[in-house]
């Protein structure tokens, strides 16, 4: 069959449309398949012991309590450091830098750090913290996570501060307050929602990070709150248990994966809900 020019065009357009539909369906199928296997494999193992008992020896009874607590401690410590440094650095970029060449360098470096391979961050912290201190520790793990979270906070802080209107700045200065008071009392408050969003995204990002923890905080089979020693954490436990030969360890790994995924997805949804609300300022 020979098509005229018009037929060829509409045929091509149809094929293009079909291709685009198929692509989207494929992406959605991947999402559904991953979530479905998490639910199928993870929900069965979910019980109270998961939250109250520590990781078991092979064949024994146990849960993930030490890993959950350890993960929360690592992420909390990392977020404190990341928010402090990130907000200050973002403030400098947005308010003080005047777009100098140095600001452009910092911005570029921040963008590179934003997508730098996390395993290299782990190697770096190993070299500068673990090796000199003579052992793996929770502090090293928290520091590695902080280094991954900080660029996210810096970036969002800079972006939301730049969104604030010039009038806001000028009204602060017109009241006779110095710039730093204006920033702290007016701009940070006005931009608060956006900064919180950035913090949450950073938290979601680091809560599943495994690679940088493998040789910084390592793992701990027992319940421990001591950040100066190796500390258990969900990602590394999942990694070790999933690759083990024991059926019950693998089941716990699925439960852990489900917990992390639910936490991360919940934060992402929360961020969208927060972002949707009109900003009160």
């Amino acid at each position: 069959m020979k098509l005229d020019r018009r037929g060829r065009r509409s045929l091509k357009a149809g094929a293009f449309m079909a291709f685009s539909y198929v692509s989207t369906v494929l992406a959605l199928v991947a999402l559904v398949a991953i979530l479905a296997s998490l639910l199928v494999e993870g929900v069965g193992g979910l019980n109270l012991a998961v939250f109250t008992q520590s990781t078991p020896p092979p064949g024994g009874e146990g849960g993930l309590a030490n890993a959950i607590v350890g993960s929360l401690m690592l992420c909390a410590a990392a977020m404190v450091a990341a928010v402090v440094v990130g907000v200050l650095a973002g403030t400098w970029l947005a308010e003080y830098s005047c777009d100098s060449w140095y600001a452009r360098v910092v911005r570029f470096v921040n963008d590179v750090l934003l997508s730098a391979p996390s395993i290299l961050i782990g190697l770096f912290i190993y070299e500068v913290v673990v090796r000199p201190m003579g052992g793996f520790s929770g502090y090293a793990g928290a520091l590695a996570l902080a280094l991954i979270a900080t660029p996210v906070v810096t970036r969002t802080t800079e972006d939301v501060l730049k969104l604030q209107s010039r009038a806001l700045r000028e009204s602060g200065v017109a009241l006779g307050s110095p710039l730093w008071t204006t920033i702290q009392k007016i701009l940070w408050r006005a931009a608060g929602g956006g900064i919180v969003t950035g913090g949450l995204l950073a938290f979601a990002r680091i809560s599943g990070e495994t690679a940088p923890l493998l040789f910084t905080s390592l793992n701990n089979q027992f319940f421990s709150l001591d950040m100066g020693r190796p500390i258990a954490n969900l990602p590394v436990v999942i990694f070790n248990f999933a690759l083990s030969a024991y059926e019950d360890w693998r089941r716990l790994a699925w439960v852990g994966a489900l917990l992390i995924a639910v936490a991360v997805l919940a934060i992402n949804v929360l961020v969208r809900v927060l972002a949707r609300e009109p900003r009160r300022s």
Partner: protein
Amino acid sequence: MDPIFRAVCFSAATALLCALAGVMVSLVIGGWPAFAKFGLGFFTSESWNPVTEVYGAAGPIAGTLITSFLSLLIALPIAFGVAVFLTEFCPRVLRRPIGIAVELLAGIPSIVYGMWGLFVFAPVFAKYVQLPMVLAAPPGSVWEKLVAGVPNGANILTASIILAIMILPYMAATLRELFLTVPAKVRESAYGIGATPLEVVGAVTLPYVKRSAIGAVMLGLGRALGETMAVTFVIGNAHGFPTSLFSSGSTIASTIANEFAEATSEMHSAALIALGLVLFLITFTVLALARALLGHRQAV
């Protein structure tokens, strides 16, 4: 007080700069013994043997480049299709939910992708794709060489596909953002003179965002190069140079993840850190190019 606050903010910004410089310096110092001992052989030799203390990184370096390239080859057309769907064809009601779903896919931690790849995807893939392909390959052909390997699902191609699923949402989201920057007036005038969607995308949208779109692709490539956990689960972790799509291999990141905590000798750690430096230089180049093409304002 103001100068003090300003100085504090300035030092926070400088700390970021120091962090990146620190990463590079520490990798150079830590990896130096390996470079000094093996010289260029570190890049060309494929024998990696902790027992005899001989380290050649050709296998992991090749594995990293091959898996990243293959994953890009798979993910790019699909990401493009998704972005086009969301900007051109999607019914208004579905636009937001599907957009969110794609972004959620980007939020799933990589270790979950790894586990899913190992326990769910790899067995299915080995049984329904790899085995038939191996059986169907005519003996003695190039095709047979390309698909040779143990059909256990842990190989270069599986790793590439898992990587592709991981970088797909990033690229789709960035491309969609880019497509939305095309002024509606321009697109609609193209439709107005009777262009089909394909012609609008090909003649108006793509040329408009060409530069940034290449940046978005490079950003995806950067992620694929450095991705650790998803790959470590499904690549099979063999050191040699990968010879076929279905041979086990390793990437730089997966080698470091597997061996670093257990490396006992100085030279073994040094060789792994030297690998890390190679990865750093590759990703830094790709990311720097991506940022230069994208400009600062685009996407996270």
